[in-house]
């Protein structure tokens, strides 16, 4: 698993790996929003948590189809399937690698971008924590979607359609946690729900991904 993780990280940072693509997209969306809705603090402040979360979710989506597609195309996926590493472990590893190259940079960059949206100072800690808890779920759910659509031509659109509805709970509770934090309310419940979704997804979805990959490799 470590070998696969290191390989995926190495591939991501080498030329053409797509590392930073999600981050750049995130940055652009957040910078564009004030241009679109105007720099008015009373407008930006209440929508900041939601915008940041939606942008983070879309940036995650951007690189999902690469999780398995590249390995499928060059034949490594079939070779991995016949290796001692179970496909379930391979999908967890690939989701973790995806999170380390997309979710983690987003989590770190989000507070800096919150400034552009006039987010309340109280909310920054909540934003970081909610993204740190929620984005792993986006990666593992995304890996499941990628496993389902691997091998399909133009699978990217179908992948988005499959995965976005599954992202809704994470989005709702993530944005809610930040909103409550901004308004000085207790945010325990959304945080607990967010953590529950993430851990539940990590416990269950790798088996679904493994099964989906096996079917697609036939």
């Amino acid at each position, binding site marked *: 698993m*470590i070998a696969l993780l290191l390989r995926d990280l190495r591939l991501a940072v080498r030329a*053409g790996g797509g590392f930073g693509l999600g981050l750049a997209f995130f940055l652009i969306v957040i910078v564009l929003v004030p241009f679109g809705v105007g720099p008015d603090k009373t407008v930006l402040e209440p929508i900041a948590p939601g915008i940041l979360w939606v942008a983070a979710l879309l940036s995650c989506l951007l690189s999902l189809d690469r999780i398995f597609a590249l390995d499928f195309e060059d034949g490594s996926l*079939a070779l991995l399937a016949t290796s*001692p590493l179970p496909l379930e472990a391979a999908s967890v590893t690939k989701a973790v690698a995806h999170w380390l190259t997309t979710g983690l940079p987003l989590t770190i960059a989000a507070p800096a971008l919150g400034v552009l949206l006039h987010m309340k100072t109280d909310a920054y800690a909540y934003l970081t924590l909610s993204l740190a808890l929620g984005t792993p779920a986006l990666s593992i759910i995304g890996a499941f979607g990628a496993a389902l659509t691997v091998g399909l031509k133009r699978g990217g659109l179908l992948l988005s359609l499959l995965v976005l509805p599954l992202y809704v709970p994470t989005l709702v509770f993530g944005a809610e946690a930040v909103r409550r934090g901004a308004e000085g309310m207790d945010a325990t419940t959304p945080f607990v729900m967010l953590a529950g979704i993430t851990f539940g997804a990590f416990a269950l979805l790798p088996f679904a991904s493994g099964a989906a990959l096996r079917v697609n490799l036939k």
Partner: protein
Amino acid sequence: MELKVSDLTVARGGIPVLENVSFTVPAGQALVLRGANGIGKTTLLRTLAGLQPEQSGQIDCPEDESAYASHADGVKSQLTVEENLRFWADVYGNQVPDTIYEQFDLVDLRQRAAGTLSAGQKRRLGLSRLGVIGRKVLFLDEPTVSLDRFSVKLFADFLQHQHLNQGGIAVIATHIDLGLDAPEMDLEPFRAAPDAAGGSDEAFL
């Protein structure tokens, strides 16, 4: 240790392509599969390697000893030759033996990114994977595609000396003569009847 296949029927997309294939390969032996394009050599090898289920019949293969090499090499073009091999060695919990680079004529290419290799060099890299994973039963699908005569000889030597002489087994689908002392099996007599029906839901699963 031996590979024993009895009455195997394999299907592609729910349609049976080969029926009642039976053979036994003892340790230290190779079996060369022959047959026209589309007869089902790849399907048979994929079934043997466990990538797809058999329709009927039995495959007796030593547990956790098989490896598969397909048309595609599984080589990552952004990684160097060394990194590619080390990855596969790590996945199988092995070390990369230093001699592997000589056996496959890769010594001068060790630090080159795999993306800059020629098709034949890439193929040699893909085949050298078989030397680092330490598996005893190899299922090879057209291993010599895009190799020149010299490289075919290198690969045949590797197969004979490093694999078969160590008690390994190989089932090889190929159209050329590898120069191995191995029995050949023509798949033509096993071709499935054209009207043979598959499992109803097989195509969708």
